């Protein structure tokens, strides 16, 4: 079992850092907000993987969710941008310095409404980064208006009922060519941890849509994003174990029901299938399963799709291995002879 045990403050990881080195500022979110749990899972995952916090760059848009990068990984740089434009800012930063590990946090409003265009194109580019949507079906920070991921039929606190088809960000991402797509629940510590660690080890855009109840505006009876509803309707596709690159553990599951996917750094995600026949490597069927299940109430969680071989934006651009940002003058300014030749050609 590799799901993190609550890390005692004294434990250190392979870098000799304690959990404390991965903490951020005190949260200013509501007590009980799902987003707080996700912050904890992210910092734990970074701790467990032994990522140097200085190598991580955090990105977010605007919203309660987008505030959270201030509450984890205080030793990492962060860029809290404007509403819906986190993907482009992350893209620029990660092109400028490809050695960074990008962690983006967004909300369902930030991603599915104002930010849907940038989301679509980020996914297509397959820029290596983790993209977490803290999905509560409402605009928390502006006090509870409905968002585009609210399921039709779900009621808002105002009494209004969501009546448009919900945007399923996972189905959308898979259909657009994403290379790693998962759904989880802020309250499922074990599953979320495994997925986050796998996402951090993936080379490509890893989309994690995490249902994360808003206790203030969307946790009531009638909401399909409340703690109660999600707990009751969570339908995990797999039981997940993350196996770090160095570790080797015994397979203790009956054969045939377990699969393993190997991540970029050699680590593996072990999937014990709970839904017969679901294959996270089959793009068309994965989309069909999600689209077909829409409206059933069931919330499919787990690793929905994975393609480790999809070329990333970095591959396509064939960047040098070093960060572009700090290349010395002589590597970015062609020599005088080059300019002379250019001038000659224009003469």
């Amino acid at each position: 079992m590799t799901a993190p045990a609550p890390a005692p403050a004294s434990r250190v990881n392979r870098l000799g850092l304690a959990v404390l080195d991965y903490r951020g500022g005190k949260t200013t979110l509501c007590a009980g907000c799902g987003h707080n749990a996700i912050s904890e899972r992210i910092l734990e995952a970074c701790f467990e993987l032994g990522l140097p916090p200085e190598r991580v760059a955090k990105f977010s848009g605007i919203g309660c969710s987008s505030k959270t990068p201030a509450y984890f990984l205080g030793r990492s740089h962060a860029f809290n941008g404007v509403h819906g434009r986190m993907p482009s800012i992350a893209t620029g930063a990660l092109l400028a310095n490809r050695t960074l590990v990008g962690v983006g946090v967004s909300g369902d409003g930030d991603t599915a409404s104002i930010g849907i265009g940038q989301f679509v194109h980020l996914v297509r580019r397959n820029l290596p980064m983790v993209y977490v949507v803290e999905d509560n079906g409402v605009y928390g920070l502006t006090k509870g208006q409905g968002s585009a991921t609210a399921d039709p039929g779900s009621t808002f606190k105002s009494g209004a009922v969501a009546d448009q088809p919900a945007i399923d960000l996972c189905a959308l991402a898979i259909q657009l060519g994403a290379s790693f797509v998962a759904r989880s629940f802020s309250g499922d510590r074990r599953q979320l941890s495994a997925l986050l660690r796998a996402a951090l080890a993936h080379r490509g855009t890893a989309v994690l849509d995490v249902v994360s109840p808003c206790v203030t505006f969307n946790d009531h009876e009638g909401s399909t994003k409340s703690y109660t509803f999600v707990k009751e309707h969570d339908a995990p596709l797999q039981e997940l174990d993350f196996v770090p690159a160095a570790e080797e553990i015994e397979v203790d599951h009956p054969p045939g029901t377990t699969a393993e996917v190997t991540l970029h750094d050699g680590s593996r995600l072990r999937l014990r299938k709970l839904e017969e026949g679901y294959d996270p490597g089959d793009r068309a069927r994965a989309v069909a399963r999600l689209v077909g299940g829409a409206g059933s109430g069931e919330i499919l969680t787990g690793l929905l799709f994975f393609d480790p071989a999809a070329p990333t934006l970095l591959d396509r651009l064939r960047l040098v291995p070093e960060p572009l940002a700090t290349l010395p003058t002589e590597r970015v300014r062609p020599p005088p002879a080059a300019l002379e030749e250019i001038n000659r050609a224009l003469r």
Partner: protein
Amino acid sequence: MSPAATAPGSAAPGAPGLNDFTVQVATPNGSGSQSSNAVLLRTLFQMGIPVSGKNLFPSNISGLPTWYTVRASRDGHVARSARVDLLVAMNPETAAGDLAPLAPGTPVVHDAALPPEGGRPALDLYPVPFDALVAPISGEARLRRLLRNMVYVGTLARLLELELPEVERAVARVFAGRARAIEQNVAAARAGFDHAAGFGHRPAFGARRLDATRGKILVDGNTAAALGSLFAGVTVLAWYPITPSSSLAEGLIAALGRHRRAPDGAATYAVVQAEDELAALGMVLGAGWAGARAMTATSGPGLSLMAELAGLGYYAEVPAVVWDVQRGGPSTGLPTRTSQGDLLAAALLSHGDTRHLLLLPGSVEECFTMAGEAFELAERFQTPVFVLSDLDLGMNTWMADPFPYPERPLDRGKVLDRAELERRGGFARYRDVDGDGIGWRTLPGTEHPGAAYFTRGSGHDERAAYSERADDYERNLARLARKIDGARGALPAPELDGDGRAPVGILSFGSSRPAVAEARAQLAAEAGIAADALRVRGWPLSPSVAGWIAAHQRVYVVEQNRDAQLLGLLRLDLDPALLGRLRPVARITGLPLDARSISDEIRAQEERR
């Protein structure tokens, strides 16, 4: 229809002369006259005669009317001339309109099969049987259509006494490396040349070899900007296509591909065609934040879309370079016409108290040098820098001095690396430690536990922590104002012309430069009015502008927009006591500025006094 329609100066005085004439070629868009016009321009250039070329093209891919104007000027005037001294009428659809404004006796080269209609004051007609002349050269209809255009080049060579060997050399340059094309085009030019031998007379003006272009190059501003960016070490380009800025980005992509890839293909740069302009600027901000020299290029509509992110760059203090190659606004406006209409929008881009640094290139040389200066300023002042070029500067062909190799190594501004952090024992991102309003920054990835800070567009204190406190907010805003104000001296100083003693001054910016220079000559020669000139090259204003205005009784502010936007910026900035001296000469027609419209207006105002 004529391109100028009721444009300023269409009934311009003055007559053509030796090495002083303007040829206008009217064609349908997409008919391939680009190469012929390039040959024409080059031929004059190679003969040592100062030239400029203005392409007036429609927002359409093929078929709509296009005009290309080649101006030869022994005095080196390279602004658009509103005079048409010789017309090549290749477009039957516009022929009537093209001929209408011509002065009697103007030479017109036209298709022998399409003689201009009657009722016109006697023109000096030169009919050319284009189809017959190209028939022997190629059996391919599509090619023959293109070659027709080279025929008129040959005809003009005869009529204007251009040197045929230079024409041939120019053809070889323009079709470099394509032997068959060179051969056929030379044949077409010769055919036109030979045919013209039969005319028996020629226009009263023409060309004769000079020595006024030695060492010069011919280039457009977008190429110059691309090359300037290349040699300034740009590492990230994010862009979205829009006329007239696309060729800047595309020129840079080509240059990067040639000069910044290792033999194994590894690139020291990243280019992304973004999904829109918001994403383009977002990428540039992300990259600038992470330490790259990042830029984008756009035009008016894209600039507007960048408004929110521009404010983020200002407030979060992130270096970025944005080229705005201006076109006719408002809205989609005239996408293939020039303008200086984005000045106010760029200076103030975004809500709240946002102010930006502007660079205002007035020549292709400055497009090159300011590309570098833009990065230096952006990184030094940690803020977006907007470089305002325009379609005339960016897409037309200009004579220029060769580009100078940048002397200094890149100055990346106040960046603390690990060692320096160690030495200082930490830092506060937004603290004004040096008294210039500019804090020190760190780059993500810096391996020091105290390197990180939190960048945000919301209220923050000196340590970059979230703050809604009135004192933090006010102090931060005041520091930002000080920082931007402090750039006045760091921006390129104005260009001055004249001895500074004239009572009249002409103040301008950007691509108005050659028209202003020529207008000053006209005012002096034709009306005895001496005028000094000042060209603003950056915003906020150089401290020297006020003194110069104070030294002149009347200052005409020349610009290519409706609302006198440079005058507006002057009004926002200067001591009100000086403002009474300023008089707008603001006009926008979409056509590159010509000298006559300036000198006429100033002369009229001076005479009315």
